[in-house]
């Protein structure tokens, strides 16, 4: 029976290896070891090769010994007398103390080397300030004075330095942790503390971002998307965003939407040129460019956007935005249409490949 369960383990290990190279069978394929996404991932892969090599060695030796002991020294009932009363063997014990010590010291050396490498700041990195709030993310492009919530647009091949904190330095939130899953490791968003991590995205596509520190009822619903685009597309977006001014609507639905927005939403949310909002609520200026709603939760289409506006606490537990039961369906549609009308023209981030 032990052999059978060992077979099972081997099978699962195999699954683990396969999982490291997942296929592209539809949906989003998250892979923390994606070698094409960043040098960070390649560094981790390089370390894991060593560690897994030693691990395999240790695993084979110990499991082999376990199986051998189980088979060979099983009591048969035919024994005459007691087994040899062996109290130990100093040489052997020194050996199995020293060999693991050497192995872990090698692993320590490799890890240290890698940490120094990853810690070196990249000159000319674009700085993005990341603020974690219950339960959404805010991004500030410090070099450009542009703010965007829950969606991060990055140019491919350009180093970016994330400066991460919980809240905004005046209003404090709980601790979150910022991770772009297939691209770079996590860094905590701690109120009153600024942490940082750097990465150079190398592959164009949509990346999945998550909060990885328990932060409340909707910890699982605190996602974001990263859109890695070509430098040219990024420049168009960032220039458009810097120059953005909300247009005065003429379409009657949009006029109605703006009116309702100013009544119901403007106290908390910001749209450049329309409302200041408050810093602890998502910015809606480029809402029309966003591919998701509810902090990376649902596709940004009316089917999800409208119920979200009307009753977000019903969709996402613990969310700070109140429900608006008094809004009619027409009202909600008008607000949704108004929000979608704000965007940098000529950009579509929804077709990027998913990683």
């Amino acid at each position: 029976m032990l052999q059978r369960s060992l077979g099972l383990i081997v099978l699962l290990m195999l699954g683990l290896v396969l999982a490291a190279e997942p296929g592209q069978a539809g949906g989003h394929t998250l892979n923390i070891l994606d070698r094409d996404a960043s040098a960070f991932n390649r560094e981790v892969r390089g370390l894991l090769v060593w560690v897994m090599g030693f691990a395999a060695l240790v695993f084979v030796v110990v499991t082999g010994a376990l199986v051998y002991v189980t088979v060979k020294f099983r009591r048969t009932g035919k024994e005459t007398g007691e087994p040899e009363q062996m109290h130990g063997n100093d040489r052997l014990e020194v050996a199995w103390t020293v060999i693991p010590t050497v192995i872990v010291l090698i692993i320590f050396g490799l890890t240290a080397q890698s940490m120094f490498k990853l810690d070196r700041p990249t000159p000319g990195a674009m700085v993005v300030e990341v603020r974690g709030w219950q339960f959404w993310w805010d991004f500030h492009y410090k070099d450009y004075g542009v703010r965007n919530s829950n969606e991060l647009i990055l140019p491919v091949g350009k180093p970016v330095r994330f400066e991460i904190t919980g809240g905004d330095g005046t209003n404090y939130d709980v601790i979150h942790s910022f991770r772009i899953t297939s691209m770079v490791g996590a860094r905590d968003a701690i109120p009153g503390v600024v942490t940082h991590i750097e990465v150079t995205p190398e592959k164009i596509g949509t990346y999945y971002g998550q909060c990885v520190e328990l932060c409340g009822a909707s910890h699982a619903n605190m996602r974001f998307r990263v859109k890695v685009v070509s430098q040219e597309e990024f420049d168009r977006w960032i220039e458009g965003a810097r120059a953005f001014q909300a247009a005065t609507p003429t379409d009657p639905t949009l006029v109605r939407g703006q009116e309702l927005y100013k009544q119901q939403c403007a106290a908390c949310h910001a749209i450049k040129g329309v409302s200041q909002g408050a810093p602890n609520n998502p910015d809606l200026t480029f809402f029309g460019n966003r591919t998701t709603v509810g902090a990376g939760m649902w596709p940004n289409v009316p089917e999800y956007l409208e119920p979200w506006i009307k009753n977000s606490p019903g969709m996402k537990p613990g969310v700070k935005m109140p429900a608006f039961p008094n809004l009619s369906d027409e009202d909600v549609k008008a607000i949704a249409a108004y929000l979608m009308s704000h965007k940098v023209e000529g950009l579509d981030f929804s077709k990027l490949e998913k990683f």
Partner: protein
Amino acid sequence: MGFWAAVWDLLTTSDHKKVGMIYLVTSFVAFGLSGLMAVAIRWQLAGPERQFLVGDAYNQVLTLHGATMLFFFIIPAGLSGFGNFILPLMLGERDVALPRINAFAAWLFVFSAALIYTSLFFGGAPDVGWTFYYPFSRTTGLGTDFFMMGVLLVGLSSLLGAANFAATVYNLRAKGMGLWKMPIFVWAIFATSMLSLFALAGITAASLTVLLSRKLGLSLFDPAIGGDPVLFQQFFWFYSHPAVYIMLLPYLGIAAEVASTFARKPVFGYRFMVFALVGIAVVGFLVWAHHMFTVGESLLFQLVFVFFTVLVAVPTGVKIFNLLGTLWGGQLDFKTPLLFVMGFMFNFLLGGITGVMLAVVPFDYQVQDSYFVVAHFHNVLMAGSGFLAFAGLYYWWPKITGRMYPEFWGKVHFWLFLVGYLITFMPQYVLGFLGMPRRYYTYPDGLYLWNELNFASTVGAVILALGGIAWLIAMVQSFRQNVKAPDNPWGGYTLEWATSSPPPSYNFAVQFPTVFKSERPLYDWEKEGLKPTPVDPATIHLPAPTVWPFMTAVGLLITGIGISLAPDMGNASVGGVPGWGGWLAVGLVLFIYSLFQWALRKEYDHPVVHHTVTGKSNAWVGMAWFIVSEIALFGILIAGYLYLRLTGAAVPPEDHRPALWLALLNTFFLVASSFTVHYAHHDLRTNKFSPFKLGMLISILLGVVFFLFQIWEFAIASGHYVEALNAAGQSEAAQKAALWFTAFFLIVGLHGAHVLIGGTGLALAYAQGLAGKINSHEQGTLEGSSMYWHLVDAVWLFIVTIFYIW
């Protein structure tokens, strides 16, 4: 014995075996309960976007699962449960060093579990994760108050239990049994107790500061006044990483005993195994920050912790290799306990390997708080320590219950657990690589392999639940079949097998030979033909039963409820529950009353002369070990203060500093009282009762004067504190002063609480003096409380230096 008589016996007992049973029953029930919660968690995650446990409800179940498994199963089952039942037997003794303290600690343990679960009746369980990170833990509901209070009480219980074990191993061993002849399990319990005494201060500091932050707004961590939330994590993990070894070492002891018995061989490399135990305990102190690689500490800081983290793998590896050596060449009898040990070795190997992987920091960044971590720690805790808890349960079941268990059901239990475990957790390693974070109540459809792997994991959890049923059948069948267990069913080598199953209340009615050649006395004596000589049981005296330790614990439970229900002044969103003052008052009165009744009840009805190995009394040794933990507690908080002070975050206000002259006056009172206690103690030893009583009274009064002055000082300081707090938004100096005042109230206030506790201790001894219940032979209360009083005095000198002079 009728039912009520049996209950009364349980409430009044101080028999280490019954105390052990209290722990064992509670912790295995806790295992079953939180195992069911785990199944509920897996049920929710069986598929994407399920609605079985959503948001806060999920977080509550998650928190209770973790907290219950850790604080009420895996820590106590091995250490306090088997430790209490088996350790005195292995040492060939009649009881532990401090039997009544031990009974009190056991009830306090039960009640702290009850306290945390009481929150369900007051609006919901804690939902902050068992790690209760600040500031998240400041923002949540009343459940967190119960949780903090429960953690504080279970911490006190652990400390008393650990001090008792340390004193027992130090003072009470069969004549001739040297330290190096103790069974490995005894060493394991001893090392674990040390670890508890040194480390527990971390979680006490963490939970106390969170509780005070919630109740009074006193927080060292609040960024609004320049505090550092990361400091909380340093406190927390200072305990909670060593706690991992508290959760492991007793079980490694069990593994060694089981392997040796069922292989019919001595343990392989006894000294190496002891060195490895102690090595793990020591290095285990230097690895805590590996839980915090993503908080953005400096490279050097991280590297130090990487170094010790990979290093701790070495002694843990040695344990595995030596277990293999023990089995090698033996005649292995694959009964259920040995099967669990084999399962442990395989799973612990996986957990060890993935543990070293997690020390590779860049990889850790990637899998921080992911399912890879979940799989790793279940690998070491559940399939590691947990399996060994069951190895111990089956191994000692005949000794504890006096009955054999059905081997068939034991084996079914093992195989279902092994297979269920692997199917549950191996997919979780893969999920870690595929980016699934832990503590998520839901996940979206359409992420590569997430649905399939999560479903597999849930199937595994169901298999584990079936294993749980097989376990229950094994236990129930054992009682129904009622096969009487012989004294030594497995051919064990240690002294617990040298008495009947179950053992009589006095354990042994024999005098053992005094020759101990190795850690296997029964084996050695048989070879050499040595036999124990019978002793007439009528000449054996045991501690008298008393209900007051139990009542004292009840008092603390009610007090705990009162404090938990009190309004949160630190957080406007949570008001108090009406009637909290009533709970608090009743609890405190009951606590104090019971404590005095306890002190006035003599431990033995017959005069008993104790022989201890060290020559020091049990109370003295017990208190000496307990004091280690107190020093650690002040050490940790003061380290936090020094950090805030040296980084310039906390600066005393120049014009509103608490007055030095008052502190010096108070120093005089306190130092004087230390002298008067010392002389009173001297008088007692020379049987001069009147000067003794006078000396005690003066000491207590000096303590009272100190305390009153401190209240006056605090009243003045709190005004300045509130002023600074209100101005903190505008002025940086006010902000730094507010943080300084916070540290001042926290640490000086904690010292004040110690004056109160120490003064109560003196009052107990004084009451014993007035009632004529203390003399130069029976003076444990005074020995303990006077030593404690000197500690209070010594700490005060530090405090004067760092708060009033610096």
